[in-house]
């Protein structure tokens, strides 16, 4: 730029605020419109997601009853509580229920989906039957389930009596109650994965199988080299969502064992609920939910990484 031109620019009169604003608006018109369009969803997301998470994180470092007091900062005290009884047992129970339920439920769901994918008579009825427990109220299903395990006049004890065996008081047996909770949870939640896996199976073209069969592939090879690789994205989805749902086990424990005997079937969500609304310790309950979120994140990431690594290898 020549000296004359520089002098000409310097000689220009300064812009008024209105002119500056107009120029700035013109230069950023696209960004402004973009933000304007995004504003409703950003507000919605901030109010309903970001704010609660941040508030929950803050409350987890405080002692607060929520009645008419203010949160008092206690640092990591609530998190340290999770190192003392009964919390390690509760974390163990939750992990045990989640992993066993997830593995067994997904395995059974896969087998059922394979069977339902075959052309069998009354296939629609079978599909509905597997989905009915998922659709029915948890409380009603728990009543049905309890008719079997009631220690006084349950069906299982009636069978034992008929066989001349002593009855078992299931409700005070840690092993049995854990077993029943897992069975109930699998039974209740089986419908969802079955439908998802069945939908994925029906998306596999028969020509692929036929081509493989022409090449001499047998049933096991078809499953190993065609079905499973194609199903992998759906399996990842089922496993990750199943993992999150399994860790959030609540109603089955509440309705069947109420955490007993001696906290041996108590789980994180039930304890978070009790800490918040019965023990009125909102700080401790918030710390529990943060711990749950971290555990879930860890398991979900590991799960996704393992499965995507397998996908890359295959």
């Amino acid at each position, binding site marked *: 730029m020549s000296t004359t031109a520089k002098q000409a620019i310097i000689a220009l009169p300064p812009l008024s605020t209105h002119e500056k604003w107009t120029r700035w608006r013109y230069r950023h018109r696209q960004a402004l419109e973009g933000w304007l369009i995004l*504003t409703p969803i950003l507000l919605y997301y901030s109010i309903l997601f970001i704010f609660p998470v941040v508030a929950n994180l803050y409350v987890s470092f405080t002692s607060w009853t929520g*009645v*008419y007091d203010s949160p008092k900062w206690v640092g990591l005290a609530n998190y340290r509580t999770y190192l003392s009884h009964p919390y390690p047992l509760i974390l163990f129970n939750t992990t045990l229920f989640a992993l066993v339920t997830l593995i067994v439920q997904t395995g059974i769901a896969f087998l059922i989906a394979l069977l339902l994918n075959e052309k069998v008579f009354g296939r629609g009825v079978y599909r509905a039957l597997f989905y009915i427990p998922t659709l029915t109220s948890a409380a009603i299903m728990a009543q049905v389930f309890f008719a079997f395990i009631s220690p006084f006049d349950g069906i299982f004890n009636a069978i034992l009596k008929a066989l001349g065996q002593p009855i078992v008081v299931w409700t*005070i047996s840690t092993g049995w109650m854990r077993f029943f909770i897992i069975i109930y949870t699998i039974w209740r939640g089986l419908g969802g994965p079955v439908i998802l896996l069945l939908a994925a199976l029906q998306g596999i073209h028969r020509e692929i199988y036929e081509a493989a069969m022409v090449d001499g592939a047998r049933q096991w090879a078809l499953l190993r080299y065609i079905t499973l690789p194609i199903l992998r994205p759906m399996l990842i989805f089922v496993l990750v969502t199943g993992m999150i749902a399994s860790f959030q086990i609540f109603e089955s424990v509440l309705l069947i*064992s109420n955490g007993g005997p001696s906290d041996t079937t108590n789980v994180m969500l039930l304890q978070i609920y009790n800490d918040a609304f019965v*023990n009125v310790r909102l700080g401790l309950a918030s710390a529990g939910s943060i711990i749950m979120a971290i555990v879930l994140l860890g398991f979900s990431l590991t799960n996704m990484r393992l499965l995507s690594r397998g996908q890359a290898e295959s």
Partner: protein
Amino acid sequence: MRSQNVSRRKFLQLSSLVITGATLAACTPPAAPQASGGGAAAPAAQPIEIIGWSVNGMDPAAAVNKPYQDAINAHFTAKYPNATFKFMDMGWDEKLRQNLVTALLGGTPPDVIVGENYIQPYAEQNAFLPMDDLIADIKSDMVEGTYAAAVTGGKIYGISQFTGCFGFERNPDVIEKAGLDPEKAPATWSELLEEAEKITTAGKDQFYGYTLQGPVGFLIGGILRFAVYSKTAGADLDKDEGKTPWFNNPKSEKVLTFLRQIHKFTPPGLSFNPDEGQVYSQLFKGVSAMQICGSWHVKWAKDSGLQNAKYSPVPIPDKDGIPATGVVGNVILSVMSKTKYPEESLYFCRCFQEDDAQDMASSVLGRLPSRRGALERLKAKADEGNKMFIDLLLTADLGVLPQWRKDPQKIWAVYNDLITKLLTTDTGVTQLMDEAQKSADAVVAAA
């Protein structure tokens, strides 16, 4: 007609205006009703609405309770013609507390709320208004045990709408089958144990001497009944008004020993059934002969087909036993301290203490009144079963469960654990008590 195009920019500007306006309108609280009582008094013409959560018998949908509702509303509007009461069903016990905590966090608590076993800790956090002045003129007529659960720091934070208490129930048909006199009620623990054993032996796995509701999870239905036996033995479960659990109280040893003994004469498996209704209905079906019962059992037994059930006071220890029982089904009304209408809300609670409302607690709601005068009036026309419960309310030492100030769920879980081990192992009673005390102390220390 000329069409007018709206530019994209114009459209966005208009849209943002509409969205902002709608958002502001949605976020603006409704016009607050004019304050009264604690603030400036409401003008007589200004209508106000008192919101009450889960107030029993006041749900307008229950037409059968209309005479009761009319009586309460008549008393209320006689003093506050501009006021109306709005009932909201917010559940009971855990669900009610969950709703209350949520409402407190959101700054939307009701004016009046009912409770049974959480008043003290909330009152200590200034959640409720004291009612001492409100009931000063009728306090001597109110059964003390019915509001004991709402007393803390020497002040009363709730008054009973209606009440009930525990007694002892027998199925005379089962007792007779065992060759025993159905008219003679066991008065002491040793008499009870002896009868229960004889009935169980005679029953040969068809019927049993006693029903005992044991612990399941964190449920406290069983604990309520054990507490009655503890009361008759003078064995408190707490020190300092619920601040410190006292599970190794030396006086508790004989209570726990008695529970372990009587459990041998119960139907197998029944004690650990979580369905309370199923547990206690076994007596009506002739499976069990005796049990602790609430005052509502008189009607329940008849409705279940047992017309001749017998009722008597709860048996007491042979030595140093105290004729005592515990209140149950005792509904307490409290006023939230943040109410906009303190005077009106307090007076609304007071309306339930009027004679006609107290009388209708029995005739309309099927429950027992909380005032001595109403109990005396009811006694004159009550049947034998109800008379027994009225006498207990008028004369017995009435206990209430401790309201733990810290981690109540965990402390009751410790006690339930103690009872589970008591009934299912042979571990020494004092050892179990000491272990439970240690666990309870740890819970309190951690909180």
